[in-house]
């Protein structure tokens, strides 16, 4: 194991422990920022030179892991910067214990890094469960009855869901075992190597359980019931992390199983299962966007929709796999940006109700402008990254044997976009005089920290639409190859 990989886990863990011991929010913020910057720097060094994973080691990094890890790292840095004004100046709600925020956030980053780095399915499971445990107390950071309800639902539904994923993990171990009960165990490398000899019936059952289990945590409909509550009730930087980084970690759990199915030559059935759940989420997500009255829940349902798009892309296979993975990057960056911006709106208006926000273009012009840009980007308008990824999936589906898949795909995305635009744009227009002023103006440094991170994330989404950098392209292609897509 290379020292960088150990550092990715140890750095946030140590900083989190130090923050837990510290009794001042200021010192905690220094630790948070230091760990976030250090994490991004180490991940950056891995892009320059990716050490080959040692076969059989518990931790290591391949293209899929690197993709999820990098996204988590960038989004964490953005959320950490945004958290500075958030914690120091307070919001409309008073948290009961502000000193818990930073240690939990860093524990969350540790767990997410472990998910991306795990080369053992048991360890992967334990890390995904650890992300649930670290993030649940963050959801009820403000001790409102609603956020308590959301945290309880999240804890129970996700824990039960991924207990099924553990059963699926054991099923995979059984599928790999020989007649004497000995087998390669649950190491990902060993399972990939033994893939052609796996027992097909147990393999199928294992994938179904993993899809349902990790799918619960990923927010695939109809298992998404916890998601709008948790994302709607969390502090905005936490919502951004949950939506932009955590959902991808759960998806990675499914993709590890999918990669083993691909290597075994039994991926056709698994792909169809992905396609069905993906379309179900796309449909539920797009339909639920209509009639939402709370803009944070609106963004949460849009995550359900996007997880569906990613699952559909990977389920179709071929070139669409690449599109699905690019969609994962786009969605992570853009959704985190939108949740951070929703925090600015919440601060200015003191409500998450869409009806309570009017004239945002006057009161918070920069936030409003970025919000408008973000909605267009997510809707798949050129020249943003979503346009490229959604078009890739659409074209591949039309080329395939069932063009109706492509038609339904693009229709649902259109329906979702109209619903989002109809909900958000009235908030930006109109007179803001009727809406009470809740908080005073921020200092310019704080305004910069509240606007800079989302603006930078949206700029990255724009860049992905204009040109996918060569190094990212290589990683996306080798990740797609692991999943049986065309490289």
């Amino acid at each position, binding site marked *: 194991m290379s020292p960088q990989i150990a550092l990715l886990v140890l750095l946030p863990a140590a900083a989190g422990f130090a923050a837990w011991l510290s009794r001042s929010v200021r010192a905690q913020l220094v630790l948070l920022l230091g760990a976030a910057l250090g994490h991004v720097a180490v991940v950056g060094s891995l892009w320059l030179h990716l050490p080959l994973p040692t076969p059989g080691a518990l931790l290591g990094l391949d293209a899929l892991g690197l993709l999820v890890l990098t996204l988590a790292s960038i989004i964490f840095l953005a959320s950490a910067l945004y958290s500075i004004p958030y914690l120091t100046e307070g919001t409309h709600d008073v948290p009961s214990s502000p000193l818990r925020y930073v240690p939990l956030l860093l524990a969350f980053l540790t767990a997410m890094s472990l998910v991306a780095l795990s080369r053992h399915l048991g360890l992967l499971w334990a890390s995904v469960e*650890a992300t649930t445990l670290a993030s649940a107390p963050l959801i009820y950071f403000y001790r409102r009855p609603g956020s308590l309800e959301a945290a309880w639902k999240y804890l129970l539904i996700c824990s039960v869901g991924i207990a099924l994923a553990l059963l699926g993990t054991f099923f995979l171990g059984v599928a790999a075992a020989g007649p004497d009960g000995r087998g390669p165990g649950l190491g990902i490398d060993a399972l990939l190597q033994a893939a052609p000899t796996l027992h097909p019936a147990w393999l199928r059952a294992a994938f179904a359980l993993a899809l349902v289990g990790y799918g619960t945590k990923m927010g695939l409909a109809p298992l998404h019931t916890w998601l709008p509550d948790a994302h709607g009730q969390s502090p905005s930087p936490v919502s951004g992390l949950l939506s932009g980084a955590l959902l991808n970690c759960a998806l990675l759990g499914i993709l590890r199983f999918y990669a083993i199915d691909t290597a075994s030559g039994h991926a056709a059935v698994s792909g169809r299962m992905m396609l069905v759940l993906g379309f179900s989420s796309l449909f539920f997500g797009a339909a639920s966007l209509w009639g939402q009255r709370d803009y944070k829940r609106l963004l949460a349902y849009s995550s359900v929709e996007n997880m569906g798009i990613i699952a559909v892309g990977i389920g179709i296979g071929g070139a669409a796999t690449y599109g699905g993975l690019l969609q994962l990057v786009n969605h992570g960056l853009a959704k985190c940006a939108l949740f951070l911006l929703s925090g600015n709106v919440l601060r200015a208006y003191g409500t998450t109700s869409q009806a309570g926000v009017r004239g945002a273009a006057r009161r918070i012009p920069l936030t409003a402008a970025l919000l408008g840009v973000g909605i267009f980007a997510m809707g798949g308008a050129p020249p943003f990254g979503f346009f490229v990824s959604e078009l890739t999936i659409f074209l591949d589906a039309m080329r395939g044997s069932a063009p109706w898949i492509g038609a339904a795909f693009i229709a649902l995305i259109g329906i979702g976009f109209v619903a989002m635009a109809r909900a958000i744009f009235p908030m930006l227009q109109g007179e803001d005089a009727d809406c009470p002023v809740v908080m005073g103006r921020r200092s310019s440094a704080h305004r910069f920290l509240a606007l800079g991170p989302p603006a930078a994330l949206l700029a990255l989404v724009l860049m992905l639409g204009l040109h996918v950098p060569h190094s990212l392209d290589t990683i996306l292609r080798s990740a797609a190859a692991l999943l049986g897509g065309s490289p």
Partner: protein
Amino acid sequence: MSDIPDLLLGLLILVGLYMVSTSRLQACVRASALQGIVLGILPIALEWTHGIVPLSLHVITLSGGAIAIKAVAIPRLLLRSIREAGVRREVEPMVSLHGSILLAAALVGLAFWLGRQMTLPFPVGSDLLVPSAISNVLLGFLLVVGRRKAITQVVGYLALENGVFVFGLTLAQAQPVLVELTVLLDVLVGVFVMGIAIHHISRTFDHLDTDAMGSLPE
């Protein structure tokens, strides 16, 4: 020698049925602790039937960890939550007690049928292992879905997790101890965090009914 694992696995199903049929929360938690003890003995018993003497360090660690966490630490946490919250009984469950017992019997039957369908490709020392594991997964699910009290839902989650643990014993030899202990630790911390949430629920809502928390829109 194979009667001992059979006995233990049968006992696990019976305790699971008892959990579903009782309305007293403390009894439910104690039953869960009993399952923890059985789970702790089970790996040793299975290894004996395989004729592995002396016991491997791996199995001793696994048994010790299971007993310490599932039979001691978690039940103590939950019993404390019950005392603090001052609740004793599950009233008006979503699925009535009589209904649950009938449903539970059907689920155990289903588990035996599934166990017959899914034959393991290798011998594991007892034919009851897969039916017992699936029974507990299904009974745990019934408790999570069918009950209103937060504590019963946690006990249900534990029963489900115990079922998964039993199934995992088929692979006990193939797994690193580190990973198994991490999984056990996750469950402990999970119940700890749930316990804190229960504490806040009982303070905020003045009771432990999770369905009263219906404030969030669909």
